[in-house]
């Protein structure tokens, strides 16, 4: 926790993006999380990603639930819209907002308690409905705000700070998202921004439900030798399947890779995701293989990271519902409520 505000000074060479903002323009109030919290690194990665994508901050809605993770939207994108909702209810509030205004970029920020315990049902339904959003789970395996009890994502057999062994099985949100039909599924690590930032960029560019499970060590309660979500453990067991470059349509491709090393995926919006393979056998376009691989690696105690699955032709909730292109909140009364004659017509068609 810091009481000092970050000075307004910045490095003289601090670059500006295409719309004239510096990275510092995407910052917000000073974090009140514990010193060293992985969540602060994720906030920094979100700032970096939005800066690099040259996103106008007012085009972003950041929506969260309750918990350490859900506090973080206060610490990035200070000029964006925000809604700190009820515990575990971020997906519903986000879905509603998305239905009302499909033009905004939705960042759902949640944690392992918020998404894997109280909000598990909400999480599942937002995935299966394909809500167009970037759903970031800041996953530390403990309830930090209540001083370090195991959360639902804590691995069976891992130890609490006091040495108690966890006897419950862990919920793997990545496996669930794959099974529930999410069209973009990734896992990353707060301690590796080189991997995390491009994944966030790709997820924002993705046109469907994108889940990023970010292992985010809790320095205060879950960074000890018996933990499987500590900085050291994740670094030692990180099985990264690929490295990602995100290329926006207008950027020329400047780096050459040997054939077979790179998988290029063009998304709906024209952005190109270039995946440098670290594991030769891994194809992120194969959902079933991804599920298999994850299970195998999990059984060996490895943490698979990278862009694990992507369906570049994903369709979202609006497509499924066949809504109009214009955001609903911009339609006039006449369009939204066409009157009793229109209702009679619909009723007649159902008789």
């Amino acid at each position: 926790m810091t009481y000092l505000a970050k000075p307004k000074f910045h490095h003289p060479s601090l670059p500006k993006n295409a719309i004239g903002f510096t990275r510092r323009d995407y910052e917000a109030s000073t974090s009140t999380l514990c010193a060293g919290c992985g969540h602060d690194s994720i906030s920094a990665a979100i700032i970096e990603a939005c800066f690099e994508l040259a996103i106008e901050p007012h085009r972003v809605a950041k929506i969260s639930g309750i918990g350490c993770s859900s506090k973080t939207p206060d610490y990035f994108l200070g000029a964006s819209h925000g809604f700190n909702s009820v515990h575990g209810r971020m997906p519903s509030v986000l879905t509603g907002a998305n239905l009302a205004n499909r033009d905004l970029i939705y960042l759902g920020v949640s944690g392992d308690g918020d998404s894997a315990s109280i909000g598990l049902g909400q999480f599942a339904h937002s995935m299966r409905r394909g809500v167009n959003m970037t759903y970031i789970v800041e996953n530390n395996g403990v309830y930090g705000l209540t001083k370090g009890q195991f959360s639902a994502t804590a691995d069976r057999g891992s130890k609490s700070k006091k040495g108690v062994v966890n006897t419950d099985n862990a919920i793997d949100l990545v496996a669930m998202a794959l099974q529930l039909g999410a069209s973009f599924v990734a896992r990353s690590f707060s301690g590796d921004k080189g991997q995390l930032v491009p994944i966030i960029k790709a997820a924002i560019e993705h046109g469907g439900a994108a889940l990023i499970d970010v292992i985010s060590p809790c320095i205060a309660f879950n960074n000890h030798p018996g933990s499987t979500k500590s900085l050291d453990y994740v670094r030692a067991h990180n099985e990264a399947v690929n490295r990602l470059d995100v290329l926006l349509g207008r950027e020329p491709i400047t780096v050459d890779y040997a054939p077979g090393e790179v998988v290029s995926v063009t998304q709906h919006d024209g952005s190109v995701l270039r995946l440098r393979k670290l594991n030769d056998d891994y194809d992120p376009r194969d959902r079933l293989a991804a599920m298999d691989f994850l299970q195998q690696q999990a059984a060996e105690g490895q943490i698979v990271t990278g862009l694990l699955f992507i369906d570049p032709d994903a369709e979202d909730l609006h497509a499924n519902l066949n809504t109009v292109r214009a955001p609903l909140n911009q339609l006039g009364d006449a369009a939204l409520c066409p009157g009793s004659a229109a209702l009679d017509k619909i009723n007649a068609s159902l008789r």
Partner: protein
Amino acid sequence: MTPTDIAAPDYFHKVVDCQWACPAHTPVPEYIRLIAAGRYSDAYMINWRSNVFPGILGRTCDRPCEPACRRVRVEEEAVAICRLKRVAADYKDDIKGRLPKPAAVKNGKRVALVGAGPASLTVARDLAPLGYTCVVFDGDTRAGGMMRTQIPKFRLPDSVIDEETGYVLDLGVEFRSGSRVDSMKALLAEGFDAVVVGCGAPRGRDLDIPGRREAADNIHIGIEWLASVSFNHVERIGRRVIVLGGGNTAMDCCRSARRLGGEDVKVVVRSGFEEMKASPWEKEDAAREGIPIHNFLVPKEFTHAGGKLTGVTFEKVKAEYDAKGRRKLVPAGEPDVHFECDDVLVAVGQENAFPWIERDTGIAFDAHGMPVIDKVTLQSTNPKVFFAGDAAFGPKNIIWAVAHGHEAAVSIDKWLHNEDVAHRPQPAVTLVSQKMGIHEWSYKNEVMPDERYAVPHRDNAAALADIAAEVELGFDAKLALAEAGRCLNCDVQTVFSAPLCIECDACVDVCPMDCITFTQDGEEADLRQRLRAPATNLAQDLYVADGLKTGRVMAKDEDVCLHCGLCAERCPTGAWDMNKFYLEVAQAGPACR
């Protein structure tokens, strides 16, 4: 690259840019904090120990510290270090009780000091309390040397010189005033164990162009004229005055002329305005008093009629640069310019002159007539004789004279104790954590953009009416507090301990200046490009630490670090800490022998 050795005194010393740039290495941030705390006497004593003349320097220093100030690199203007020094001098209590006492027992060694300027007096200040018998010779009746004769009273009142030269002379120093040394041979014959030549660079350069002899009555050498003004031998000058030269002496000349009847005073320089040797603030002061500066004009001829000066003719030139970037002034091909005037002041440089040092005293001189001396020990080829101040390497400034004085004192002290003078003592260094609690630091680390505060000046009309009226009024306590708050506390160092680091990135994320990077090791040139913000200022070091679990290195670019301490505040393990670095240059005495 090689990990940084933070135990080497120079490493953190360089980070304190002001202290590093100061020839005497005064611990600037420390005394600025004391000023902010209202502890003016304590601030004064830190200065007095280091630079001997805080009140004088607080008005007249050439301030090498200010261009070096980190505020320049992160904002625009330096902290007004020099004028804060004056605050300490202006508002201190009576500090006489805190000064060293004259030595109770003399050590039997006698040191002669030629000239009562800053170099000699600094040697005396350092040696007299140790028991040396110090005898200062000066042709003038009062001590101060060129500080008294060349700096106009409206910049430096006599009372300040009297006070601070007095502190030195009161240490049991014998002052033979009005006693000019005319012969080194005779002086050495008096049996002194060591002699310090601190007589300055007393000869003003002349300008030998047509008309110089014919119009001599109205052409004056700048420093001689300033001395005459200082002694009230000159009280008037013509209505129209031309000052030739672009250094600080020229600025003193033109401003003095404005006060002695010069209504139309102009400065004419050979170079461009930007390249003038005068400090920017002295040019500003001249401009404020309505004195124009004409540049790129080379004096060609003094015009005269009936034995009386009528003006000066100048050739117009322009600057051309050769392949090596050296500037050459070449004729611009435009018609000559003629300015009419009644008097000319020539301030085109100063020279050393040692007519009183016989060439058979064992003191070797080089082709330029300068003494051959060791750059560090200041010892001449006659091991008994040391040179300091302007006399050593030509005209510089007061703070360099003080720095020389300290070094000469160390040399003499070692020499007279039969020690190797080339073996120099290390500075005294401490490094102490400033952490008081989880969010408490013992220094003000809320860094904000804050523009430099201007020193109040006396009203122009009143200032010009009286040559003894000090123009700058100095900061009051409130302004001093505000200006002191601009100091970034660069002496409170970011100290990193790799074994404690868990590489959580908190420091990287929070650093407002993107100074910190964790990355693969490499050669310095390569590493500088791979940092979070490229480290292009090669004058500033990289702080590199290895021994991290991931095998990476921590590389911190010291260049624009604000010393805000956020890295340490956000560090969960205390791998970063803010430590106050205090460095005092060794001075003569048992500790450095």
